[in-house]
């Protein structure tokens, strides 16, 4: 059982048990354009909800990736360091950025579900 939620900063987070996988949304990847560089957090680093956790750079610009929920980083998708284009190819799958051990499930519940995020993007 997993559930996916979204932030207004265009991250997605998939929760399985207390492990949260984080990436950027398809909309964000399309807006950024071709990704050429990612900087990922080290395992063991603690981040708060909304805190800067990673960096994604396209040909055009650099953007921060924020942790949708607080917790301790357990893994980073180091494949992206060599193949940043994976973020564009499969942003909500193989293009994930990092995993967190979630500290507070209430933070996850506060985020948008898929339908709410679609509405949010439509309004931009």
């Amino acid at each position, binding site marked *: 059982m997993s559930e996916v939620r979204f932030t207004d900063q265009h991250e997605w987070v998939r929760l399985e048990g207390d492990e949260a996988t984080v990436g950027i949304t398809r909309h964000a990847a399309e807006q950024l*354009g*071709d990704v*050429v*560089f990612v*900087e990922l957090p080290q395992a063991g680093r603690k981040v708060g909800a909304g805190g800067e956790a990673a*960096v994604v*750079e*396209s*040909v*055009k*610009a*650099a953007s921060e990736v924020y942790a949708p929920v607080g917790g301790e980083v357990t893994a980073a998708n180091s494949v992206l*360091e060599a193949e*940043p284009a994976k973020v564009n190819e499969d942003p909500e799958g193989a293009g994930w950025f990092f995993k967190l051990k979630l500290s507070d499930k209430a933070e996850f519940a506060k985020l948008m579900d898929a339908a709410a995020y679609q509405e949010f993007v439509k309004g931009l």
Partner: protein
Amino acid sequence: MTDTNETLKVTPLHALHLELGGKMVPFAGYAMPVQYPAGVLKEHLHTREKAGLFDVSHMGQAFLSGADPAKALERVTPADIQGIPEGMQRYGLLLSDEGGIKDDFMTTRLAGEAALYLVVNAAMKDADFAYIAEKLKGQATLAPAPDRALLALQGPLAADVLERHSPGISQMTFMQAKRVTVAGAPAIVSRTGYTGEDGFEISIEGKDAEKVARALLAEAEVLPIGLGARDSLRLEAGLCLYGHDMDDGIDPVEANLVWSMGKRRKEAGDYPGAGRIAKHLQDGAAKKRVGLRPEGRAPAREGTEIADKTGRIVGRVTSGGFGPSLNAPLAMGYVEKEFAANGTKLDLIVRGKALGAEVVAMPFVPNRYKRAKK
């Protein structure tokens, strides 16, 4: 973004950009395509491999007439304008009285024509035209040509493509310019561009722009290219972007553009800001524009501080990003002269971390201009 479009000017190709799926952004007061559906990376690589068509109609075109427009124009530039042979174009810097760079521009002497044809940067055109008209008052008359469009066809296959629409055009060599017909439209064509590739710039009446653009885009080798790839192409070619890599506080010596000053002009010292510039030519300037290759893959963007290996800040990045053909990050910026030699190891301060970088010769990607055989 859409609501600002009302106040933005558009080029004669606006409807075509929208039809092609161009992502329109404000640039220099115009709605311009930053990219098309192919995306910046593919558009960049396509231009280096085949041919790309750019709409640069937002740039300022004008004709300068008078008893001796070339002599008059030398009042505002250190370029050798009088020495431009018939049928040739030349790059020059527009200087303030203090020797600061107000813009860079191209001057063309068309065969058999008394007036000079000028092209200046989009963001600066109103200011440039007012400045030139004022400085040359009584000597020459500047007539802006806002109804003209400008297309750039760039890439190794550009000549093959243009030959089909303007027979004989591929005989031209780098920096030559002439009046011809392109796809049935009267045009001023020069074998120039701002990508480091072989290619052409095609000035036509605005009313003919869509017809010519469609004829070129119908060729299998050609893709439309947006401003995003135009920027990464010019950066790989080591070319300056006005307002970023140079401005009116920078002189030609600091900007490493002394090659654009005429030999006769340097000797005569008869150009604006000659006091400061001659001193810099003699003694060197305190800072200089250089190319930088960061280690690793993290791009260092405009504004990034440049430090020496002791951590002292010795300069700043003025253009930086990722070079799709280089498949690596690249940057240009200004550093204190002691650090300007090729091979100098420096650090770029990216998000608080020092990333190693080396001063390198530009262009980053070799130019492929079709120069005349000597």
